[in-house]
C-alpha cells in the first residue's frame, strides 16, 4: 500500500466514524425533540387533596363530579387510591378482592363510603351545584344508609341526585301551595 492510498484509506475511515457520530446524533436529537423522553405515566393523585369542581351545568355533569368526589372521600378515609377503590366498587367480586387485598371489613368500607358521600355533598354544595336546602337532609341520609345502597349512590349518582332534586321540587311545590 503506498502513502497516497494509505492516506485516502485513513481519510475514508475518519469520514466513516464522523458520519456515524453525526447520523446517530441527528436521529437521537430528532426523537428527543419530537417528545421521545417526555412520557411519564399518568400519576395517581392523592385522594385527600381537594379536587376542584368545574362549573357543572347539567345533572349529568354534576353527577359525574359528585361520583369522583365521593370516591376521593372514601379512598382518603381508607388510605387507598381513588382508582383502586373505583375498580373495587364496580362489581361484588371486585369488592371482595379489594377487601382481601387491603384487609378491610364491610363496616370499615361502609363507613368510608358514607364519608365519601358526605364529602361529595359538601363539595357539590360549595360549588353551588346543590341547594343548601337539600344538602343538609342529604348529608343526614347518606350517613345512615347501608353499604350496598351507598355504593349504588356512587355508581348511579345521576338517579340519586335526580331523585333528590325531584323531592326538592315536590317539597318546594308543596311549600308554595300551602304557604302564603
Amino acid at each position, binding site marked *: 500500500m503506498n502513502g497516497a492510498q494509505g492516506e485516502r*484509506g485513513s481519510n475514508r475511515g475518519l469520514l*466513516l466514524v464522523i458520519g456515524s457520530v453525526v447520523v*446517530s446524533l441527528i436521529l*437521537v436529537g430528532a426523537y428527543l425533540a419530537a417528545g421521545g423522553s417526555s412520557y411519564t*405515566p399518568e400519576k395517581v*393523585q392523592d385522594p385527600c387533596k381537594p379536587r376542584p369542581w368545574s362549573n357543572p351545568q347539567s345533572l349529568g355533569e354534576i353527577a359525574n363530579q359528585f361520583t369522583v368526589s365521593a370516591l376521593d372521600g372514601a379512598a382518603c378515609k381508607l388510605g387507598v387510591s*381513588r382508582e*383502586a377503590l*373505583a375498580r373495587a366498587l364496580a362489581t361484588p367480586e371486585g369488592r371482595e378482592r379489594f377487601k382481601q387485598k387491603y384487609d378491610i371489613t364491610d363496616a370499615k368500607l361502609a363507613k368510608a363510603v358514607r364519608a365519601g358521600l358526605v364529602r361529595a355533598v359538601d363539595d357539590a354544595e360549595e360549588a353551588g351545584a346543590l341547594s343548601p336546602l337539600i344538602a343538609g337532609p342529604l348529608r343526614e341520609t347518606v350517613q345512615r344508609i347501608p353499604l350496598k345502597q351507598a355504593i349504588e349512590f356512587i355508581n348511579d349518582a345521576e338517579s340519586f341526585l335526580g331523585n333528590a332534586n325531584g323531592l326538592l321540587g315536590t317539597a318546594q311545590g308543596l311549600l308554595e301551595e300551602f304557604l302564603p
Partner: protein
Amino acid sequence: MLVSFNLVMALAAVPAALLARRVGPGRAAAVGLAVFAGAGLACGLADSLTTLIVARCIQALGGALAVTAALELLPATVGSEQRAATVWAAAGATGAALGPALGGLLTELVSWQSIFLLQVPVALIAAVPILAVAKHEAATGIVSTELRRTGRPHLWANLALAMVSAAIAAALFLLVLLLIEGWRLSPIEAALVVTVMPLAALLGGRLAELVAAARPRAAAGAILVSGGLAGLAFLPKATIVLTIPPQVLVGIGLALVLSALTETALGGRAPQAIHGGWTISARHAGVVIGLLVLTPIFTHEIEQQRHDAINAGTAVILDSPVNPLLKLSLAEKVSQRLGEEKGKVPTIGPAFEPLPEDPGERSEVQQLQGELQDQLDRGATHAFSTSFILAALLGLIALFPIALSKEVEL
C-alpha cells in the same frame, strides 16, 4: 432455554476448533453438520421443553464444530486466509441480522418447529461438498499440521466483540418483543418489520468494502449500533415507521462492526480455526451476558408499566365526562383486561364493547378508548427504554477495546 444454545456455543467453540485441527477440518465440518442436522430434527420433533433444550445444546456443539472447521476450509475455496476471514466474518454478521426476521416468518407461516426442521436439509446440502474433502483426508491421512504458533487470542477485539454482540442481541430481541408484546403485532408482522435490519446490513457490507482499515469500521459500527439503540429508547410515538431509522443504523452498524472486529481478531494469527473459535466464543458469550443482564430489567419494567397502566387507565376513565355508571364499569373492565394479559399490552377495544347507543355518549367513549390505548402503547414503549439505553451504553463502551485493538495484516 433462551441462552442455552449461545452458552454451549460460547463454551464449545475453542475446543471444537482444536478438535477440527486434530481430526482435519473436512471431517470435523462433516461431523459437525451431521450433528447439527440430527439435533435440529430432534428440536423440531421435541415433545417437551427439556428435550428441546438438550437437543438445542447438542445442536450448538455440532454448530461450533462446523463453523470453526469452515474457517479452515475457506482459504482453499476463496483463495487466501485474509479473504477467508472476511467472507467468514461477513457470513456471521449476515446471519445475526437475518435470524430473527426469518425465524419470525417461519413461526407464523408454518410453525416454530419448522425453524429447526428447515435446518436439517440446509445442513445436509452444505455437508455434500465437504464430504469430498473429508474422504480425501481419510484416504490420504493428510491433516494440516501447521506449525505456526497458535498465539494468544486478540483480547481487545474479542472483548469488543462480546460487548457489541450483547448490544446487538438486545436490539434484535428487545425490538421483536416490543413489537409483539408491546404493540400487539403478530410474529409475521414483527418479522417483516425487523427485515429492515438485514437489508441495512447488506448496505453496511457494501460500505465496509470502501474502507480497508478495520478499526474505523469497527468504531463506526459500534457508534451506529449505539445510535440506533438510543433511537429505539427514545421513540416519540408507538409507530412502526419510527422504528425504521434506528433499525437502519443498527443494521449498517452490525455489518460494519462484527466483520471488522472478527477480521481484527483473526489478523496475523494462526491457526485461523482456533482464533475463529475465540471470536465465536466471544460473540455468544456477549449474547448470553446481554440477555441475562437485560431480561430481568425489562421484565421488571414491563410489570411496573402494567401496574402504572392499570392506574393511569382508571384515572383517565374517572376524569372523563362519561356518565358515572358507565365509567365505573369501564374502569373495572379495563383493569380486568390489563390484568388478564400479563406482561402484554392488550387491545383495549373489547373492554369498551358494547358501545353506548346514544351518539354523544358513544363519541365520548370512543375518544376515551383512543386516549387510553395511546397511554398504554406509550407506556409499553417506555417500558423498553431503560434496556435499550443500557444496550446502547454497551455498544459505546465497546469503543474502548476497539481503540486499544491493533490491526495486524495477515
